[in-house]
């Protein structure tokens, strides 16, 4: 009896980890999308175009990663687009004060803002949807106010933005920065208690509280990370455009949420992860390319994008894990 149990346990330990397989559905969709595009326009899979695709996709992927964490924990952060837009404006406005370090300071400001917002949401028990919708409006307004609603060139003495607009050994530095962020967050989720607590909160908040999970701290930290990722996404954007515009990231909010869902993360929380977020961000970005290469005229691109996103969600989401879909 004892031996039989031991051997089943050992077999189980070597057994497959279903969590790793979870991302495979969306991954297959991504591969299929790329293959279809390559059949229509072989040019898109050449190394040069892939590299430039990745650097275009980096802001969306960063937003999707940041947006995934609160959703995993059963909340949602809608303020990311506002944070990203305001980041660009602040890099210009605060440059006279902080000089070359402005963008780093702005990231820290964003994280402090995110932490405050997470604290408000969890401590005062305000729904995150409403809190972040309010701050989204405030941040977007602040960006307009501070910039006088005009686009301005990015000062060329900013160290981090200058670094991001460069490349190392033909790889854009935005891509390198993105990979570092993914690696750091991946290690945090796996090796810190935070990772488990996030899933616990998203799966059953009451059970998490009764198991001594520090709900307020977890929510504060993930909203700080979310805002930090959004700020970095903003820096990615201005490193590409070289201009800051107060509405720079305005259209990216819905794209980032589409990315979260496409990767297989459940809006209801508790199901999903970092790699699904990356895949979801890649699919979303690639869908935008598809609308261009199949020759949709610019005025109709949103329609086609919306349609393809619906089809992709239908193909990727594993509804059996989600229970009742809302």
């Amino acid at each position, binding site marked *: 009896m004892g031996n039989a*149990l031991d051997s*089943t*346990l050992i077999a*189980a*330990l070597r*057994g497959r*980890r*279903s969590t790793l397989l979870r991302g495979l559905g969306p991954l297959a969709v991504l591969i299929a999308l790329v293959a279809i595009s390559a059949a229509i326009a072989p040019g898109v899979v050449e190394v040069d175009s892939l590299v430039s695709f990745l650097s275009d996709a980096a802001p969306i992927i960063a937003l999707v990663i940041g947006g995934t964490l609160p959703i995993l924990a059963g909340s949602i952060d809608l303020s990311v687009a506002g944070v990203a837009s305001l980041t660009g404006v602040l890099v210009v406005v605060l440059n006279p004060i902080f000089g070359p370090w402005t963008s780093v300071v702005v990231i820290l400001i964003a994280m402090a803002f995110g932490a405050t917002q997470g604290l408000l949401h969890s401590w005062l028990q305000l729904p995150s949807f409403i809190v972040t919708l309010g701050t989204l409006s405030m941040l977007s307004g602040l960006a307009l106010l501070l910039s006088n609603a005009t686009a301005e060139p990015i000062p060329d003495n900013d160290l981090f933005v200058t670094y991001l607009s460069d490349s190392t050994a033909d790889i854009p530095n935005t891509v390198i920065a993105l990979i570092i962020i993914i690696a750091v967050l991946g290690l945090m989720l*796996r*090796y*810190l*208690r935070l990772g*488990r607590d996030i*899933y*616990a909160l998203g*799966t*059953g908040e*009451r*059970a*998490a*509280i*009764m*198991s*001594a*999970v*520090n709900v307020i701290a977890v929510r504060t930290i993930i909203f700080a990370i979310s805002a930090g990722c959004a700020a970095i996404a903003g820096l990615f954007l201005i490193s590409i455009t070289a201009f800051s515009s107060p509405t720079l990231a305005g259209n990216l909010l819905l794209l980032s949420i589409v990315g979260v869902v496409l990767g297989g993360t459940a809006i209801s929380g*508790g*199901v999903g992860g970092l790699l699904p977020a990356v895949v979801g961000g890649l699919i979303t970005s690639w869908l935008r390319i598809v609308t261009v290469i199949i020759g949709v005229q610019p005025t109709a691109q949103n329609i086609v994008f919306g349609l393809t996103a619906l089809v992709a969600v239908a193909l990727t989401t594993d509804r059996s*894990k989600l229970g009742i879909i809302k």
Partner: protein
Amino acid sequence: MTGSLVLKGVRKTYGSVVALEGIDLEIRAGQVLGLIGQNGSGKSTLLKILAGLAAPDQGEIILDGQPIVLDSAATASRYGIGMVHQEQSLIPNLTVAENIFLDKPHPATRNGLYRWGALNKAAQAQLHKISVELPTRALVEDLRFAERQQVELAKVLAIEELVDRPPIILFDEPTSVLTPDEIKLLFKQINRLRGNATIVFVSHRLEEVLEISDRIVVMTDGRKVAERDSGSVDRNELYELMVGRQRVTDARSDRKPAAQASTPVLKIERLSSGQHFRNINFELRRGEILGIAGVLGSGAEEVCRAVFGAERVDAGGIAIEGRAANPTSPRTAVRQGIGYLPADRRAEGMLPSRSLFENAVLTFGLDYGWRSLVLRRGKERPVALEWMKRLKVKMHTPYAPISSLSGGNQQKTVLAKWLMARKLKILLLDHPSRGLDPGARDDLFAVIREQADKGLSIVFVGDTISELLELSDRIVVMRDGEITARFDLTDGAMPKEEEVVAAMV
């Protein structure tokens, strides 16, 4: 009379798991059939098949000589089969009347139009049939559990009106959260139905099954292993048939009063909380098991929750090892070495879609980490698995979601979460055996007793008096938020069950 149901060679699998195999069963008209078996033995699956909620892979269902196909709950109710669900199937934000007629056509709701007057009157008539007085306009969520069960019974019995044969009523563990009085009332109603209805009664409490059933069927691992007339069998034989081993009849005898330190581990003084309880005083020493007896609403559960920081306290103090503790949240309580096994396992005890392993290491994983900062799966995994082994958790892999296991194995895993703690001083058990079969219950109690012998102090709110008498060193009885009696069992003085009941109600 008609209303007999026969199953022939019924088999049901879920993926590679065989839930039922070769079930031949005769449910005789007008009788009460008791169905018992351990968690995961296939009773629930069998009930689901009878209620039309699951389709058998093989086999036949024959009603009064006619083979029938039960492909939905609606079909089952057309044949006069209805189920009183364990977790209750009422919609909380609808009224009593709406719920009773939710699943059946009625003139009062024809064409989707509500004729409220007629609906309420019809509902009143259904409730009167079982001699229950309840406001039909009340929202179900405002009723007590036992009242909701009465509504559910009325809802099932209303099927009678739809068919011209006696109804077949399935009770899925109806007594598990009822007080002794409420159980008596339920049994009275079942006895009244006997003869006019065919009844299948599932329960983990063998005494109840013996009392109410005409015949008893025992299931193990998806098979029918025995069928007895309830007059020709006793509790111990049923236990053995069900668990496959003999019951350790006198578990108490080897329990010695633990060495007792001078300061109590837990001291509660004049603790009060609004409507829930008033002026509660007790002490808990090292290695002691303190049982709290009390019906739902007596405040026993709330005292437990207050000690764990999950219930507001208005006055009084909680001291741990002589120092004022007064936990304000579960987190502070856990930091002071208190663990709590909640009564509502599904909402508060476990994370349903996460793995067994993750559930077990959720709270104390970092105790095995690097400087309380970085998790080390290599260190925590063997400990978690060791506890699951000692608690005899039946599983294929620790990475399966905990919701795929039976209630007993879930509860064992939730207990493993607390036992993983390195510095646990007090463990609060709130109805730990709720929904557990006797075998799983005994596994759980054995480990609890063993931990108490090792010095863990335990507060235990019991489901039944017999289990309180079996496990506790001392018993505190609560009624309406106050302590009404105390019994000390350490010097061999066992109070009679009636004495404890007298203080409870």
